[in-house]
């Protein structure tokens, strides 16, 4: 004889009281709004008070234009160096498991955590005239302190760790099985990396580079220790503030906020494209 097994119905949903639900919703909304306000209000205020004059100033303030160009170029060089130098490290951290791996990752993150002037001082110790490396560079004609080289070094130092983290993530998202399959199909490790891993990680790596670039462009504390002149735009805006005061600094600051939208837009485009492509 077959026994009829009684099936219990699924448990009834446990609900908080309607009042609690409403209160939680309101509280969450309030907190979020305040936070967003906190983030956006200063920027909106800045742009609205200085935006128009700032963009006009771009036309005739050639010191500002020069500084912007210098900042963009040095940041780009630093980013290129970072991508070339740090991509292998990111790949290693993503794929290999080795002793001391977490220590290495922590050390790489160090420049992000230390105060910026401290980073500048650390670089001064290693790349300054008095150090072995710096001394050698100096005598061979490559001046670090007080030059664009110094700017690039400072930018690279503080922003490369961001690239390593983000690039590592990009590689982690590429299933290692793809590489295994490519290897069994005849590719050696480098070919598999070039033909499979790199194309699949490309979008993520580009986003990582944009993040690095944005960070490099906004650096002040570490750069100013190594190189005050020629001025990058962060040093220039502080200089303007000290010399002329707020009213003259606002347009510069507003322009910088507007220009910062460019890497942001690039990042959004990369992320959106990525969402469409992945399945």
């Amino acid at each position: 004889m077959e026994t009829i097994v009684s099936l219990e119905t699924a448990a009834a949903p446990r609900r908080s009281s309607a009042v609690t639900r409403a209160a939680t919703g309101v509280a969450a909304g309030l907190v979020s709004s305040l936070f967003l306000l906190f983030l956006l209000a200063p920027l909106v205020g800045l742009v609205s008070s200085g935006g128009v004059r700032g963009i006009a100033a771009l036309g005739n303030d050639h010191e500002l234009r020069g500084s912007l160009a210098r900042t963009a170029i040095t940041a780009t060089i630093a980013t290129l160096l970072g991508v070339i130098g740090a991509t292998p490290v990111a790949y290693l951290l993503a794929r290999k498991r080795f002793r001391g791996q977490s220590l290495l990752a922590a050390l790489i993150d160090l420049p992000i955590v230390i105060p910026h002037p401290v980073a500048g001082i650390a670089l001064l110790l290693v790349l300054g005239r008095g150090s072995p490396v710096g001394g050698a560079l100096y005598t061979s004609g490559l001046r670090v302190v007080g030059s664009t080289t110094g700017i690039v070094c400072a930018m690279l130092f503080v922003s490369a760790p961001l690239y390593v983290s983000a690039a590592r993530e990009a590689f982690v998202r590429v299933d290692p099985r793809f590489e295994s399959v490519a290897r069994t199909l005849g590719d050696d490790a480098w070919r598999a990396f070039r033909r499979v891993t790199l194309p699949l990680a490309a979008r993520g790596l580009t986003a990582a580079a944009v993040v690095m670039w944005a960070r490099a462009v906004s650096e002040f504390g570490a750069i100013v220790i190594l190189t005050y002149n020629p001025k990058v735009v962060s040093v220039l805006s502080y200089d303007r503030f000290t010399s002329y005061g707020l009213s003259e600094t606002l347009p510069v600051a507003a322009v910088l906020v507007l220009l910062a939208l460019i890497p942001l837009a690039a990042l959004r485009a990369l992320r959106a494209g990525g969402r469409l492509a992945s399945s």
Partner: protein
Amino acid sequence: MAAPQVTRFLTTMLTHLLADTLVIYLAASLNKPIQPVLDTFAAREHVIVQRESGATLEHIRKITELHRMPDVLLLADADVFPKYLVPGYTSWFAELARNRMVVAFTPRSKHANEITPANWRTILQRPDVEVGRSDPNLAPVGYRTLLLFQLAERHYRQPGLAKSLLAHAPARNIRPNAAELAALLEAGELDYIYEYQSVAESKGLRFISLPPEIDLGDPSRAKEYATASVRIRGATPGSETTVTGQPILYGLTVPTRAPHRAPALRFLAYLGSPAVRAQLRAAHVDMLAHPIVVGTNAPAELARGNDR
């Protein structure tokens, strides 16, 4: 056992609750000498001292743009008081101490063993020597360096000297203020810097004394100094202003709207006391025999030296 510690803790807490505050904006070059004076004052008077040190123009901007008012303002350049602060923020200021321009260096500097008051110009024009100076648009010591060059050209009767000295202290070796400049010298990045004597002495740097005709250190030579003038950035972008040579004097004021006026005045008295004056002199601050007061409604504590 734990009683003394607990008592001390409670006393400190009480002090902080009941104590007065004194906010002082300080020239960076005065940091080292003034710190012990501030500490003693704080302990004696049960006052909490908040010290902010930085470049001259930074302090000015904090007051005029950000409306952050100190109780005492002590700057390395008395010139800025009439320029920016009188009469809007204060009705008076006092010139307290002198300073001189020197050429500072370290034992590591190139040709450190050769340099003398007689040959400093030659050494500083050598191609392998890194010479630094402060930004003339931001720090008084910066434009005083330029004035020094002019005075030197006249004094040594060497046409073109000013330009040459300037060329050998190029833009890449400019730093925004005296403190950063000295730091770079100590780090070995620069061989020689144009600096205040007080800073050189307090940092233990070696230095070359310059002739009083050019070092802007002698108040009696004000007329001579005034023969030199340079153009620096003005108050608005694109504008320029002329600065004339003047003896270097430290200036002090208590702003009209100082938030804690009473402790500020007590500090003034303390600063003027013979013990403190002697202490400052020992710390290489060249105090004037009597402060020179400019303006109106200066407090009485300035004149009296209150010795406790």
